[in-house]
């Protein structure tokens, strides 16, 4: 059996790649993908811990997470579409009509 620490290192690495993507990418779609990586890092944890703890709660919760990630992307793509229509670009740094 693979020790639980390996799973945690893997999920932490995936999470950090996601955070890195959010901090460096300017394309809104890349941003969505990075968020997806972070959510899936949590899913790795949930499934691994579920196996470790011997109950199914974590696995079921990871299904919830996937469904909600899909719903979030659906709303997000809609917003990115109107972003493109208004600003002719999906660059998140272009939308600056209000000052920060």
């Amino acid at each position, binding site marked *: 059996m693979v020790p*639980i620490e390996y799973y*945690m290192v893997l*999920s932490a690495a995936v*999470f950090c790649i*996601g955070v890195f993507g*959010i901090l460096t990418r300017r394309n*809104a779609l890349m*941003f*969505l993908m990075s*968020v997806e990586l*972070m*959510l899936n*890092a*949590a*899913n790795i*944890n*949930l499934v*691994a*811990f*579920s196996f*470790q*703890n011997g*109950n199914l*709660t*974590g696995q*079921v*919760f990871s299904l*919830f*997470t996937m469904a*909600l990630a899909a*719903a*979030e992307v659906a*709303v*997000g793509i*809609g*917003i*990115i579409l*109107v*972003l493109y*229509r*208004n*600003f002719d670009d999906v660059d*998140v740094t272009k*939308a*600056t*009509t*209000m000052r*920060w």
Partner: protein
Amino acid sequence: MLQTLQISGTAALAPTLVLGVTALLLLLIDSIDPEESSSALLSGVATLGSLVALAAAGAILVATGGEPQSLFQGQLVVDGMSLFFTFIFTSVTTLVTLASYDYLKEFRYKAEFYTLVMLAATGMTLMASSNSMATAFVSLELASLPSYALVAFLKNNRGSVEAGLKYFLIGALSSAVFVYGISLVYGVTGSLQFDAIASELGNTGEGLVGVLGVGILMIIGGFAFKTASVPFHWWAPEAYEGAPAPVSAFLSSASKAAGFVIAFRVFTVAFPQSTVGVDWVLAFQVLALVTMTLGNFAAATQENVKRMMAYSSIGHAGYVLIALGALTGSANQAFVLGAGMIHLVVYGFMNTGAFLFIALAEYWGVGRTFEDYNGLAKQAPVACVAMTVFLFSLAGLPIGGGFLSKFFLIAAAVEAATIGTYVLAFALVINSALSLFYYSRVVKAMWIEDPVGDFEVGGYPTGLYAAIIVAAVATFLLLPALGLFTNVAVDAAASMIQ
């Protein structure tokens, strides 16, 4: 499985069910003839639905006396706390749907707007009842996703779209952080249900406290987004400024309260300070201090009224965070939490009212800066009296409930009697004094300054006026009647802590 769902049990969820059914009903009405949907009918159904939910919450509170009712094998719990917050959510929803009748007259997709508001309210009431990390996460998303769409509702307005984008991006990021935190807590405790987490925490090995601490910090991050507190507060000024003003009112009052109710429940039920071994009280003290100071100082430098109100809303999140930062061992815990709940009730009315006044100004086509409000009182004295009540109550002058609720927060912090809470009480006083400066700029502009041009207000919209006046009367009456709420709030907090 099925036989555990008793009728008496699900009846306790009546407010949530009524809000959800109203949302579907609105879509049904709209589908009959989408081009000719009556604005009055849609607004009326939405307002009626939230009023029924409000009445149902009150009736259940009276009938059960706030006795906790566990539902769906403990995934949800209906108790005094959840009903108290359901009262806040439904009151704000009622005011917002009433005011939107005039605000939305020129727009298409009215039914969708009301549906999204109702769905978000459904999510908020579920958040108040959540008793496990799974339901907390799902209901938090149910409250958030419609809000993203609502902020970006004005599809052809660049400000609104930009606000929606920023709100969505930071929301998606913080919900990912939140889920990761949940996964770490699940790894340590092997459970998602709040009371089970608390009972497992006692058996946590020394080596796992670090993992648990990171998990708890990440969960705090998720709540910070929902309540617009540091470090996930950056979306708030943008989202509130760009969104249609009724939506700003809804988000800054109801959505903030929803974030707080789930934070109260998680940190008192799942991570009680006595067993957790991670000093989250200190984390909340720092967050409260930074949030209120940053919010108020940033508000003082604004030239745009709506943006000023957005920063003031961050400041108020900082005040309510005192309720979590003062939960030290020496504190009267029920009173500390109760003080936060009371402030959220009063804030629900006065802040919604202030944003609805801004909605009224947008309806008239008044500009957005302080100067544009010059001399408004000559043309619309009634609305300006109401706005004055809201602003002074927000600042904490004894003209509305805001004075007493701030006083309770200070008393709770001082009673906890640690250095951290003394600092918080002191910071609250200083920040309130500062806030009086920028709130009175609006009042001065309305009543004392002369108008710049010859501006005529375009009519007196019934729905907006009704909502503003109801909010003003409620804010004013909460000053003498706050004692009523205080008992309910403190009892609810006490029964949850046990």
